[in-house]
């Protein structure tokens, strides 16, 4: 386990501790993380159910660069598969993985609860209800070639979170425990409404369930625009608040006495994290486990400092989901496996391994 850095500690001298803090630059770790992300992306781009040689894949991708044409001799179907299907899929999986891990880390920080994930206060159930309502509706749910499902999922997710927040409000404050309870209650209402819709539209159950279980089979470049406008600003805001989130790990009174406007920070960060998670869920369905486990894995490896934890969760969340999706489309080829099954099945053992290796408490 020493592999993972700063585990060994005898009795560090204060000078050493200071030096360590000063020298604890994010960049080396981030470089490692980005390397892992890039490696995962390259692997995922090279492998797929369609049998295309890796060098052909590389040539196809490089040919998108201006002035490079290496792929002219390759079949058009290969070029379509790599550029229009596989690559957007890899990018989307990475983006969604990064978003979910970042949102999960933010939720865990704001709620000071290790069990928090991006779906805690209604994103998943709200999105599920929104998507189901559109999928089972007898009306045509594409408008101008654009499906309304992501839009409805996005709206449902935000409505659920906003409702939970409004209901949990006590005077000028929103106690986190109340917010969690309100979120759980809203989620169960939305889930039962969703189940009701599904049962009354049995012929659409399969489609609905597949959407809910989540996946990237239908990724395309255009869908990135569904996600990026929300994820980028949200990630920017959240990353700015790394230091404040550390302070928030004390109780809220101490944070307040240290100058943090706790209620405003909670609203801002939960809003940003929920917005990002809602956008991710709207294009990928409800992929579990990433938002819960990746931040914990980062915490186990590199410690609890949110200034590092947030960006590292993003890069590793992206890498993790890219690899999970790679398995989802290759293990049972030519059929797909819902990627949520993979994330849970492969993520949990690795997480347990980390948990066993590291003896001291991390949260």
């Amino acid at each position, binding site marked *: 386990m020493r592999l993972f850095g700063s585990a060994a500690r005898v009795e560090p001298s204060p000078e050493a501790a200071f030096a360590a803090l000063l020298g604890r630059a994010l960049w080396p770790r981030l470089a490692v993380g980005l390397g892992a992300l890039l490696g995962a992306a390259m692997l995922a781009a090279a492998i797929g159910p369609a049998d295309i040689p890796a060098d052909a894949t590389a040539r196809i991708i490089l040919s998108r660069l201006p002035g490079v044409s290496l792929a002219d001799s390759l079949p058009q179907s290969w070029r379509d598969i790599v550029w229009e299907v596989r690559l957007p899929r890899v990018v989307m999986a990475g983006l969604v993985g990064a978003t979910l891990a970042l949102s999960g880390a933010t939720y865990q920080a704001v709620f000071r609860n290790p069990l928090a994930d991006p779906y805690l206060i209604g994103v998943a159930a709200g999105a599920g209800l929104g998507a189901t309502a559109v999928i089972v509706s007898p009306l045509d749910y594409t408008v101008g070639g654009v499906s309304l499902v992501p839009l409805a999922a996005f709206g449902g997710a935000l409505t659920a979170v906003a409702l939970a927040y409004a209901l949990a409000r006590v005077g000028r404050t929103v106690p986190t425990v109340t917010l969690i309870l309100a979120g759980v209650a809203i989620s169960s209402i939305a889930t039962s409404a969703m189940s009701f819709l599904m049962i009354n539209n049995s012929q659409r159950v399969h489609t609905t369930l597949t959407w809910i279980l989540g996946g990237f089979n239908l990724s395309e470049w255009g869908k990135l625009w569904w996600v990026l406008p929300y994820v980028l600003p949200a990630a920017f805001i959240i990353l700015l608040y790394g230091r404040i989130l550390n302070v928030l790990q004390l109780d809220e009174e101490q944070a307040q006495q240290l100058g943090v406007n706790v209620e405003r920070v909670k609203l801002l960060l939960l809003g940003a994290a929920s917005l990002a998670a809602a956008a991710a869920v709207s294009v990928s369905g409800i992929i579990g486990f990433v938002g819960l486990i990746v931040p914990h894995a980062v915490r186990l490896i590199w410690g609890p400092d949110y200034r590092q934890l947030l960006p590292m969760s993003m890069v590793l969340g992206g890498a993790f989901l890219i690899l999970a999706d790679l398995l989802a489309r290759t293990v049972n*080829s030519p059929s*797909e496996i819902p990627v949520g099954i993979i994330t849970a099945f492969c993520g949990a053992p690795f997480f347990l391994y980390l948990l066993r290796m590291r003896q001291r408490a991390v949260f």
Partner: protein
Amino acid sequence: MRWKSTRALAGLKARVCCFFCPKVYSKSPSPISRRGTFCVPQKGGDVISLVQRGLLLLALVGVLAVAVACEDGGGEPTPKASPTVLAAVQVPYPQSIVDTVGREVTMEAQPQRIASLSPAATEILFAIGAGDQVIAVDMYSNYPEEATTRQQLDAFQPNLEAIAGVGPDLVLLFYDPEELSDSLERLGITTAVLGSIEETPESVEAVFDQIRLLGQMTDHVQEAEDLVAEMQDRVDAIEEALADVEQGPRIFHEVDAMLYTAAPDSFVGGLYKILKAQNIAAGTDQPFPQLSQEVIIERDPEVIILADGGYGESPDTVKGRPGWGNISAVRNDRIFVIDPDIVSRPGPRCVEALEALAAYLYPERFE
């Protein structure tokens, strides 16, 4: 969804054998006969069972002609099953049948108040002239028009009270959630599970079986035979027209926009087998797999059939999918929408679906 289905051909062979060897038959009732689609008389005494065997023979003739290479042929009745039996018009009651999940079902009299919780069974009943005996249907029984005038029940989340409330003397289920059949029987309501045959490879034959079985149960044997014969003729015509085809076009049958498809081992897949099409979903072990998008592009279907046309998909949306532009079916504009009700419902209209698909796949052979 789990279907308890039966391999009709194997079952038929076994039953034909039993038929001609009464001793063996009576001594070995269970493993084979329990799996059977129909026709294992067990009650009602010797005379009735004889009469029934005669009727069964009659019922089997059509199937044997096409499906079973039985050297004896089906047209030669045993001495005991005399012409008088064949001439019988009325089905005697009480009669017993074994439904597709192996339950023995006894009807005391001709059912007059049937609740059909299976869209396929509903279509069959109306097609063989038993529509007047149907008083309630499930909410997906949307054909024929007349069926929608009956009281509606929910087949997927069946409510015991609601079913019992319509006062049926026969309930037809296409699956049996939480032992619903037992509950109904406890209420004294005769119930038969006519399991879905979606996974049955010999799909059209299995539909014929069900038609004959329902004909027998409702005392519309002749109409059922006529319907089967007509359907068989239409299937034969297609097979004849394709006799010289070695290998048909590559097809992708889209069940929904998530790219679920029908593999060869499904009812729909069976229709494509008759049409000798190359199903690009071959090689999966699920009846309805979700295909990877890149697999679809790589396997390059020549014809795409959309069964999800009612849910926002159309040839235009398919053409607009990124990366699909170079697929043969898209390039050659061979994307067609088919009504999922006729193509995936194992009822009388499956031959309509077959004819429509034949026209899509072989426009030069069928107008």
